[in-house]
């Protein structure tokens, strides 16, 4: 029921509605006020408020300029890269590795007409000398959030827009290193191909996207990923027009360009969970989801797929954080494919590991047992090979959970 009534002209009486409950009435009027604030604020909106001013994303490509000069890139590492302990879990972004070490680093461009909404500066307090780099978050349209990470310098235009804006800062630690991060909400419209900044000299910069229209899944423990951007992780390469997309796909593989990924999806994957099996994300009991340091992941390798990877964080008493790749078997209890390891009472053993360069590595074995769908027991042991078994756990074994 809507009753239109005439009220004092100085007040914004638009309509009078019948509401069931004062809480509902306030929520509805609060939503109206917030929408009104967003609309009136559109021209000077910053941060998330910018999103409401953008159009919905079309189906298909939204980016038409390469993120960088691709002739300066050796390789693009796909989604799912691990580097424990800070990246014990598969990464939700891809990495662009520069061909040569230069003072300035490769240029980083706006891949389409975008609005930068947030720039996060990170000061590496444990580094010597201390240095700062930037993560730049932007939207080409309402549902697609994209970012560059490890941008070492900002372009003069972006830097000018950033200067003087209010910051939200905090200090955090992961992987025994301490960081000081400041987020700044901005609204910097850029045209496709505009310079955003430069990557690190001789290193890699991150490139990641989250599409609200895409929901990954199923995760073995959905509550761990609820309300996170990561549950919307997509490959940013898939959002480019054919030319730059093809050029980038040809570079997907090892960062040094020494090996190209052979298995679809070429851009890798973020979610590796297979519920009821050993494959996917495993969490150290009682530890928060992030930082990832104490956890464990058992995944398909991002470069050498279908080879699989064990990524161990800081929780094993006799094992430093490390990740190894191995050739998975479809039978037996040695190097058995993670998605085929079930809570069957068996202990499985893993040996014959390879390092990121594809060379044999490691002088120990890992044994694991899926106790139930939610719990895995895991241990590193000093033997060179698994042998014929059977294997047994010691007091160094650690349980992880979904």
């Amino acid at each position, binding site marked *: 029921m809507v009753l239109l009534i005439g009220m004092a002209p100085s007040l914004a009486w638009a309509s009078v509605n019948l509401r069931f409950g*004062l809480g509902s009435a306030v929520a509805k009027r609060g939503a109206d*006020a917030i*929408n009104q604030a967003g609309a009136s604020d559109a021209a000077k909106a910053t941060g998330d408020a910018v999103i409401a001013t953008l159009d919905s994303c079309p189906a298909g490509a939204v980016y038409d300029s390469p993120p960088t000069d691709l002739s300066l890139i050796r390789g693009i590492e796909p989604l799912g890269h691990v580097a424990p302990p800070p990246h014990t879990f598969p990464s939700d972004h891809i990495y662009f590795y520069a061909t040569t070490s230069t003072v300035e680093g490769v240029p980083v461009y706006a891949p389409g007409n975008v609005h930068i909404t947030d720039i996060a500066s990170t000061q590496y307090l444990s580094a010597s000398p201390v240095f700062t780099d930037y993560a730049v978050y932007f939207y080409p349209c309402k549902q697609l959030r994209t970012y560059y990470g490890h941008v070492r310098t900002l372009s003069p235009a972006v830097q000018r827009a950033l200067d003087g804006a209010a910051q939200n800062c905090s200090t955090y630690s992961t992987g025994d290193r301490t960081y000081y991060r400041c987020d700044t909400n901005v609204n910097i419209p850029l045209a496709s191909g505009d310079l955003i900044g430069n990557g690190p000299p001789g290193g890699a910069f991150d490139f990641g996207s989250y599409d609200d229209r895409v929901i990954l899944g199923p995760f073995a423990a959905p509550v761990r990923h609820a309300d996170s951007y990561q549950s919307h992780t997509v490959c940013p390469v898939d959002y480019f027009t054919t030319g730059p997309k093809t050029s980038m796909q040809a570079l997907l593989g090892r960062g040094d360009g020494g090996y190209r990924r052979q298995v679809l999806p070429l851009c890798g994957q973020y979610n590796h969970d297979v519920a009821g099996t050993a494959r996917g994300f495993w969490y150290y009991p009682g530890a928060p989801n992030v930082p990832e340091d104490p956890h464990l992941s058992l995944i398909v390798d991002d470069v050498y797929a279908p080879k699989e990877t064990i990524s161990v964080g800081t929780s094993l008493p006799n094992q430093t954080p490390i990740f190894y790749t191995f050739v998975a078997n479809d039978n037996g209890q040695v190097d058995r494919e993670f998605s085929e390891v079930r809570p069957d009472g068996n202990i499985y053993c893993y040996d014959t590991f390879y390092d990121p360069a594809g060379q044999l590595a490691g002088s120990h074995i890992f044994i694991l047992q899926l106790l139930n769908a939610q719990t895995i027991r895991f241990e590193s042991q000093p033997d060179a090979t698994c042998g014929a078994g059977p294997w047994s756990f010691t007091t160094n074994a650690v349980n992880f959970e979904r």
Partner: protein
Amino acid sequence: MRIPPRRWVLPCLLNFLVIAEMPPWANAEDLSESVQLQSLLSETDKVAEKNDLKHLTLTPGPGVAHERLALGINYTGGQLRWNFSPQWAAEVRYQQGQASSNYGDVKAVVFGLRGYRTSHPASRLPFYWGSEVAVTNAKPETSGYSTNGFAAGAFAGMRYRASRRISLDIDLGPYVISQTETNTHTTATNLDFVLNTALIVGIF
């Protein structure tokens, strides 16, 4: 037959609810309850209270509530009521609500203070009216926007007294709701008619 004007429909309906729909078993309590009520009201000097008496005897209820403190649950919230007398009460209440916005679902919380004046308190279906002031907050799930403000309104309604301790309230009234978004200082003031319901239980 001439159709009565629309403005008479509501009063006629209320009259029907109060008088014609009086349950038969209520008459069993008629005499004792009216005596009790007369005794109670005779302690006051208010003419209006005494004038109410003849009406009260027509719609007897389960007895005048003696409980000072009453707890209640309302639509998406709860309340705590203090009865100063059978006619006068004050109440603190909490309510929440949800609505969609351009920035995801907005969740609102409301803390309110109500004053009540009840007519025919011994009736099974007493009328009541009063006013309310409340402070409000609303926040969407995906942005830094939030609103603070107030709501103020008047209401009138009817109480169904299922027993001496338990009653069901339903009321309707105009509320001014004014909220200011904290980042942009955008203020929106509106008038809504709000329907409230509550289940009330007398404690002691």
